């Protein structure tokens, strides 16, 4: 038993009949597991992981759920507008972001050889923006434009733009350039070449990216209300601070159902697209 354990780290050596000594290859995974365990312990220390507290106070979590459900159905007329705002904000934001991203991603993909300096520098800028959470965009637009749905739509558009651009230019770089060169040799302009040879190849991927971003944006749009960018987040915040838990239950229920429904629709759409 102990012998086996040692050989996890120290390679077994075999002496062959011709006198050569051969070492068995050692798997790296034990080291990786040890590093992972050390990291988990370290991170647990940093965040103050406290399992007993969770068990002791765990019933509070379910108490809150119990307070929220059954929910107060009569609150629906008051929150209808906010919910509609959230959905439209995310639809408009996704569409605007993706439509703007499309020409930019053609511009940024390496196969059109526009200008290396411009391509690389704009890619760096977009990568930097892509790492920021959507809340940061919302905060900055809120300073510039004040509160409201317009701010939220702008924040979603910019966020979508950064993600969609990256996905699109990575995909465009894998595209077959033969058709493009063929049409270029007929003397057509660059835009016409792209429109007839590249666009048909990427359009399926583009539409499915639009649906994918729509799916994630509906989820993140609920946060935007917190920083004053319109939508259901405002209602969530106000009902929470008023401690009207049954109203809150309805808000949460409607949000969950909306996300499920949109996810279902988006998946259906993407399956249809991949069939075509």
């Amino acid at each position, binding site marked *: 038993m102990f012998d086996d354990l040692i050989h996890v780290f120290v390679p077994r050596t075999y002496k062959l009949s011709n006198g050569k000594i051969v070492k068995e290859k050692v798997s790296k995974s034990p080291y990786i597991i040890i590093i*992972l365990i050390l*990291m*988990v312990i*370290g*991170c*647990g220390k*940093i*965040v*103050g*992981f*406290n399992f007993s*507290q*969770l068990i002791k*106070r*765990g019933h*509070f*979590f379910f108490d*809150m*759920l119990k307070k929220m459900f059954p929910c107060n159905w009569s609150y629906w007329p008051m929150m209808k507008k906010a919910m*509609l*705002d959230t959905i*439209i*904000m995310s*639809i*408009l934001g996704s*569409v605007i972001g993706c439509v703007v991203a499309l020409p930019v991603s053609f511009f940024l993909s390496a196969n059109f050889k526009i200008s290396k300096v411009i391509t690389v520098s704009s890619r760096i800028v977009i*990568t*930097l923006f892509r*790492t*920021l*959470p*959507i*809340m*940061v965009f919302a*905060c*900055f637009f809120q*300073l*510039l*434009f*004040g509160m*409201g*749905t*317009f*701010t939220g*739509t702008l924040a979603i558009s910019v966020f979508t733009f950064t993600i969609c651009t990256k996905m699109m230019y990575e995909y465009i770089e894998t595209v077959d350039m033969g058709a493009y060169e063929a049409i270029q040799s007929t003397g057509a302009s660059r835009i016409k070449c792209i429109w007839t040879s590249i666009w048909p190849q990427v359009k399926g991927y583009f539409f499915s990216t639009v649906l994918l971003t729509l799916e994630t944006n509906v*989820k993140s749009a*609920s*946060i935007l209300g*917190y*920083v004053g960018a319109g939508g259901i*987040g405002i209602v*969530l915040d106000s009902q*929470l601070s008023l401690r009207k838990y049954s109203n809150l239950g309805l808000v*949460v229920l409607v*949000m*969950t*159902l909306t*996300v*499920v429904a949109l*996810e279902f629709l988006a998946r259906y759409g993407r399956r249809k697209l991949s069939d075509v």
Partner: protein
Amino acid sequence: MSNDRIDNKLKEYPSVWVKFAVMAVFILIMIFLGKITLQFNEITELGVRLIKGALYGLITPSWETIIDLSKNGLLYMVLETFAIGFLGTIIGAVLSIPLAFLCSHRTAPRWVNVIFITLVTVVRSFPTIMIAIMFVKTVGSGPFAGVLTMSIGSTGMITKMTMEAIEDLDNGVVEALDASGCNAFTKIRLGILPQLSAAMLSNILYRLDINVKNASILGLVGAGGIGAALIVGIEYRKWNDVGALLWGIVILVLIIELVSTKIRKSISSKD
């Protein structure tokens, strides 16, 4: 003769006008949607001044915050954000393994699938901010609540991806084990897990990417991480601090993204 064929082929395609009509209807719908929700706000002079200050702050981040090694310093907050994302992903991954097997029709009976798929879908679509609020009420504000939120939030997604990987498995190995009389656990351990580990590892790394990015939002409701300081900084217009924090987020997310992409590429090239 050949001209006829070309003409006929051309007529098979929808005309340009149909395409334009579809585009026009789409744009009209978008404008209509915009009309009923958006109130267009004008850019205020105050706003322009604030944004100028903010941009200036981004270029000149406050070095005091960056060098500060105490709990209010940038380094500690970035580390805390990473810890929340990392632990959340690990717990989510551990929780998702049994759930994925219960959700897949290959390893569990139909009625079990229906129950667990519904459960996972509901949990996945439940607003994350609400989970965070509930955990803050349960265990008090702080990064621990953030870890719990992240683990619940990522369980749903990882389960779904693992489930899809299980559906793609090669059934031959499992059938062979079945024929030799193995029980369900042996089948999972020897027939499924070795095939699954690469896909699962790559899913988990992908999720780590997203979780570290999202962990910076949790501060909004007091669930730890860099977000709380960020919001306070923006509220009190301390642009140099905000600049430092944003650079912290950017660098953290970039490093995680680079490492995870690299490992994922090496995994997929091994197959």
